[in-house]
């Protein structure tokens, strides 16, 4: 094994074909920034590769969907690869869900410094420095199985630095079972690194750019240095252009809209102070109790609040754009005595509880759709995709039903105990 360190950059999930999503509307002045964000973040990754003078770049999948990205992304990548080729830096590329090896090979004639792993078998490339092999890179593109073939990622040359690259979900046991010093994994947009007892590291570098409100926090690539003893050291390098955040606020029965706006303003100022380089997209999550919460739930107060925040902070540079104001329904608890009453409301809540307790009880949403919708894509879209989704809908339905059946007339005020995001148009 070489006595001097091996340096590499690990990046994945560039998704050049996918601009940010999850927004109900796109502000015009930020539109250009949103369109360019994936490319700018990817360019920062390649800049890092050149600047750090690494031996090679590991791409661990979902770099680009050739068909959905268009010629611009292919040309962009080819230019960046040429740039690395001129610098004598190799690229080892394992395909993911978006970039199947067959598709990326067919998309372009890539430079000779780009090596693409097969999806059907584990390939091994020997990386040379000054004509001498210094590292063995084993890897496989995403195949039919979603599991990472940890056991198969074993280099034949034991005297070289072993490095692996794959696409899939990393389990806790993977670092213990891997045969390579560093395993670069793609397929997860958040950065995550795990180290086994044998100091072997498996790492999701994450996407260089967060794409939606759920992908909060910094995003970037990973700089890896493997010393002469084969022990890797990783360093996360931020490359994102815009950053997503979800911030919470609590209200009570005395909180007014102005007070809440002031509370959110302080949060934004604190956020701006922490990061002055990035554009910020913030989703607000309000919980607590009081009439303001009901007003927010039905959209009567959330729209002016959003408008005010956007006007104040959304047009500065860097911008802080408020995406939405949602009412947190996870803390909602309906009074037990409501469900025990011999009323329609009591029957309704007991019925809902039964469906929550027994997921096997049917909820035939199809019966409310016309056949022309059932036959189309809407028929699948209205179905519950998973159990949490069903539970969420049932909880919100319970709150909505309680409100419609006049729970506020039963002694306890619905607004005092219910905080939910369920919208009831014009109800």
């Amino acid at each position, binding site marked *: 094994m070489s006595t001097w360190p091996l340096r590499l950059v690990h990046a994945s999930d560039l998704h050049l074909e996918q601009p940010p999503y999850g927004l*109900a509307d796109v502000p015009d002045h930020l539109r250009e920034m949103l369109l360019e964000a994936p490319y700018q973040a990817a360019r920062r990754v390649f800049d890092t590769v050149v600047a750090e003078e690494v031996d090679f770049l590991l791409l661990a999948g979902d770099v680009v969907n050739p068909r959905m990205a268009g*010629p611009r992304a292919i040309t962009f990548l080819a230019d960046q690869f040429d740039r690395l080729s001129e610098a004598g830096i190799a690229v080892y590329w394992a395909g993911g869900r978006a970039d199947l090896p067959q598709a990326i090979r067919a998309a372009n004639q890539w430079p000779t410094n780009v090596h693409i792993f097969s999806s059907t078998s584990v390939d091994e490339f020997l990386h040379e420095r000054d004509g001498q092999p210094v590292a063995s890179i084993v890897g496989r593109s995403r195949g039919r199985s979603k599991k990472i073939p940890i056991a198969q990622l074993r280099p034949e040359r034991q005297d070289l630095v072993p490095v692996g690259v794959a696409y899939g979900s990393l389990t806790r046991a993977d670092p213990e079972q891997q045969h390579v010093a560093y395993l670069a994994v793609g397929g997860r947009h958040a950065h995550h690194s795990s180290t086994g007892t044998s100091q072997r590291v498996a790492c999701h570098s994450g996407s260089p750019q967060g794409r939606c409100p759920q992908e909060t926090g910094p995003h970037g690539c990973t700089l890896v240095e493997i010393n002469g003893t084969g022990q890797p050291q990783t360093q996360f390098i931020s490359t994102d252009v815009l950053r997503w955040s979800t911030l919470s606020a609590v209200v009570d029965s005395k909180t007014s809209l102005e007070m809440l706006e002031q509370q959110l303003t302080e949060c934004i100022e604190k956020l701006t102070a922490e990061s002055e380089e990035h554009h910020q997209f913030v989703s607000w999550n309000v919980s607590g109790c009081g009439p303001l919460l009901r007003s927010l739930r039905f959209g009567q107060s959330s729209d002016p609040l959003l408008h005010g925040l956007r006007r104040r902070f959304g047009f500065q540079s860097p911008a802080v754009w408020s995406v939405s104001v949602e009412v947190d329904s996870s803390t909602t608890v309906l009074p037990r005595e409501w469900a025990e009453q011999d009323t329609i409301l009591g029957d309704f809540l007991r019925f809902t509880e039964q469906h929550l307790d027994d997921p096997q009880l049917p909820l035939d*949403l199809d019966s409310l759709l016309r056949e022309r919708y059932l036959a189309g894509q809407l028929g699948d879209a209205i179905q519950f995709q998973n159990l949490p989704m069903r539970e969420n809908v049932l909880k919100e*339905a319970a709150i909505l039903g309680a409100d419609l059946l006049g729970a506020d007339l039963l002694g306890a005020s619905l607004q005092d105990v219910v905080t939910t995001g*369920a919208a009831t148009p014009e109800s």
Partner: protein
Amino acid sequence: MKISNLQVDGFGVWSGLRLDDLSEQMTVFYGANEAGKTTLMQFIRAVLYGVSDQRRQQYLRATSNGQTGGSLLVTAADGAMQIERHPTLEGPHDSQVKVTAADGTVHNKHLLQSALHDVDETTFNNVFSVGLRELQELGTLSDTEAAQSLYNLTAGLDRVSILDVLHDLETARHHLLADGEDRSEISELLTQRERLENEVNELSELTGRWRRLTTQQRRLGDDVSRIEAEIKEFERQARTVEVATAIKEKWQERVEVEKQLAELGHAASVPADAIDRIEQLASRFQRRRRQRTALRRERRELRDQAHALGVNQRLWRNAPRIEALVEQQQWIASLETQAAGVEADAQSLDAQIAQECSSAGMVDGDLTFASLEVPRHVLSSLRGPAKNLRQVRQRLIAARDETNASQQTATQLASEIQAALTAHSQSDLPTTLDAAGTRVAQLRRRVQIDERLEQAERHQHEIEDQIRDLLQQQLMPLWVLGALGGVFALGVALVLVGLLMPTSFVGTLGVSLAVLGIIGVGTAMSAKFLWERSSAKQFDACQKQLQMLAKQLDHMKQERQRLDAELPGGGGPLTLRLHNAEAELAKFEELLPLDARRQSAEQDAVAADQRAKLAKNDVRMARQAWQTALSAASLPGNLSPKQVRALAHRGGTLSRLQSQRSALQDSARQRRAEFAAMQDRIGQLADDAGMSLIGESAADQLRHLVRELAHQRTAMTRRDDLRHAARRLKRKEARCEREIEQLRARRRALLSKVGAQNEAEFRRLVLQATRVQLLGRQISSLTTEINAAIGSDTHRDDIEELLDSSNIDQLDNRWEGITTDLTARDTLLKKTLQRQGALESQCQQLTDDRRLAEKHLELGVVNHRLQRAIHQWQVLAVTGLVLEAIRHEYEQHRQPETLIDASGYLEKLTDGRYVRVWTPLGEEVLFVEDGSGQSLAVDALSRGTREQLFLSLRLALVKMYAQRGIHLPLVLDDVLVNFDAQRAKAAVRVLRDFSKAGNQVLVFTCHEHVWKMFKAMKVDARRLPDCSKMNSTASDTSVAVEQPAVSSPKKPAEKPLPVKELFIEESLDDEYEDVEDDTVEEEVVDEVLEDEEEAEEDYEEKDSGEEYEEEDEGEEDEEDEEYEEDELDEDEADEPAEAA
């Protein structure tokens, strides 16, 4: 409140009517139509709630006694009280009520309202005092507070209408996703998404286009390289053509010289004295050949002399064998003599053995076993198997005899039966019997049909006659018509007289005459109406019977045609044919005993055959046991017990003789074999020597061989001498031959050196070689000059190709072609470079295109909105589904108590056919659920069932009021009029049970059988008096009707008998009077109903031919038929009830 007495002073048709001691449970009144039942119900309503204007017009008129209205004696929570109301013909409807308490105090209407528990008149009329009209109109309930008891499902404790909530949810859902073609948020978002996806897909195709463009660009680059290479090649070719043109003349000269040289061919190297050397060799060769020929002729002559000696080589080689045989000549002669002597001894022993065997009973072929010896213990072991074998053989023979006997018997009987069948042209007895039996049955059926047809036609004629009579009866006889007309005219005249004649003329009788006239007119019209209705009913019944008979006749005629088609034609009348067929069947049946005997014989034969097979199997087993015993005794298996016995008797004599004979035969065979071997050796020797034997005996043959051997020895000596001389000559000839070959080789070597085949060719080749050397020097000179002109830049092969004889004349054309191609390639190169530039420009445009990313961005926005809208829709939908489930739960299990009670009454009334009455949430309609769970709207029910439902609802409502403490009498006026017998029976029981539960029920009915049912259940049942008689009597006497059941208020001294007493007196001869026991009364009712059911069954049996037609008709027809059946049931039910 319960009514105990009722007094009608003047109301409608009634005046001076008293009904006393009404039962607290149930009282049933019978009265024919127009008897005043509805008037009594209206009277109760009028006393309790006053006389409305309509009621005043209809029921109040001036009576003879001048009194109107009447009173009720009731028992309420406040005690007994009398309610009187005497309305005037004109005046307020409730101003005349008078409530007198038991203590005689008079109260106003407030006490009455208290007794009525503030139940308003509308509710009373639709719930407690119900006529057929009110019963049939459920909608009238809607105007009462009672309806809320039926439809109160909507209002929950929440005070929130679940229907309103469901409606709001549906509206909100439709705002998100409309059912129809309306615009909604989700549908618009779906449209947007679809449009964006299509645009994304279209833009995604740009990647493919860009890839194609880059591929084309790469291909154009390849084309440019190829064209540039082609231009270089053309330039090189132009230089080559230029050089070729310069050396063209010298090239042609060299080609000419080479051509001459080629024509001369190859010239070999030739020595200088070649001609002299070839001539010397030829001379020496001729001399040696002549010497060799002479030596060869002399040696051939010596060989011919040796062949002429005739030496037999084969005989000479076998000389030692011949000499050895000569030494054994004496022994050979003695062998033949010895063999003949031994054979004679053996023949004598054979004669002795044959004599012994014949005396032992053996046939000639058994000599093989003659030497066998059977010991005594072997014999005892063989005795058992031999005995068993003998017994089973005997059993086999007996079984075969029995089989033959039974088969003969069966054959004989079969031939007898066949002879009998053949006489009737039949072949198989069972088939014949079946056919004959079927024919007899068909003929009998045919005869029966004729008889039934005759009866039916006779019946048809009778009914037709009856119909004709009825038609005539529909036209009323003249004397009846005249009588009725007279009564009618008289009535009219009396009315006119009463109304128009002056009082001075008729006095106080005017009104009475008018009333009498009206009665006369009414009686005449009623009689005429009843007469016509009765005739019409009888006519319809006859028509139905006639139709039924016609169908039966058609059916029988069809069957008769079918039987005629199946039966053979001819044969005379049917009875004669039936007689003949029965006789023929009897004859065939006589053959049955014979056939049984035949079958028995065949079965015996089969059984005997089975026994024979078993015996045969036993014989085989016994034989195997015998052979096993022989094997165990080491005896041959094919010995019979008899042979074994003979062997045991003869013992060992034959064995000894046989052994002696065998020894002699062996000795004789040995001698013969030795002698034959010697003869064979002599014959073989002669064959090997190539000679034929002379003489028969072996000695003669041997001597002949010796003689031939001596001759041969002499010839061999002469032949050896001749061979030595020939060898010497051959050695000389070989030396001469070797010299000839040496000369020939030297000459061949000289010719081959030049390459010639013979001497002449050798001389010609020497001259040719000289010429070739001269031409070669000329070609070398020309080649040097051409090479200098070509130089090193030009390929020699290309020059040679251009100056080839076929191309050398095309050099100028070739030069022009190359320059043209070169120009064209230059042009093409320019165009390709231009196209490459254009492609680069297009690729750059595609690379700069960002529309795809923009569409992705927009698609993300639309998807987010769509996802949020679908989530909202899901929440609304789940809320709606849960509320719908609750609504269903309420409708199923939380119906109002009144409807639950009504369900119980309806189930009893319909004998369980309908089990539930329910109302949907938020709607004021009712549904009825049958036993299978199917719900029907009220409108979908038949009239009878609908009235059962309405009666159930009234009973349930009365019960509901009773539970609230409101006890009012239930008055039912002819509500069972449309019930058939079963329904009426169920209704009677339900009403009786209802009254026993503490509710007072007053029932008015116009059906006597219904009244009798009530009476049979020991209910207070009374007949209403004839109001017309009461009035006429009154008119006659100007007092109240003097009927036993009616008392006139003007004659208090003579207290009129209550209706109940009147009925008791009138029905003394009624059989129900004697029935005291409840059970017996129930049985009587059941008998009444059973008679009705039997009548119905009879009718159904008669009408069975129409059942299928009726089932095929629609629901409306079914309802009509049901109604008609009800009427028919009523009519038919009256007859047996009266008969009973």
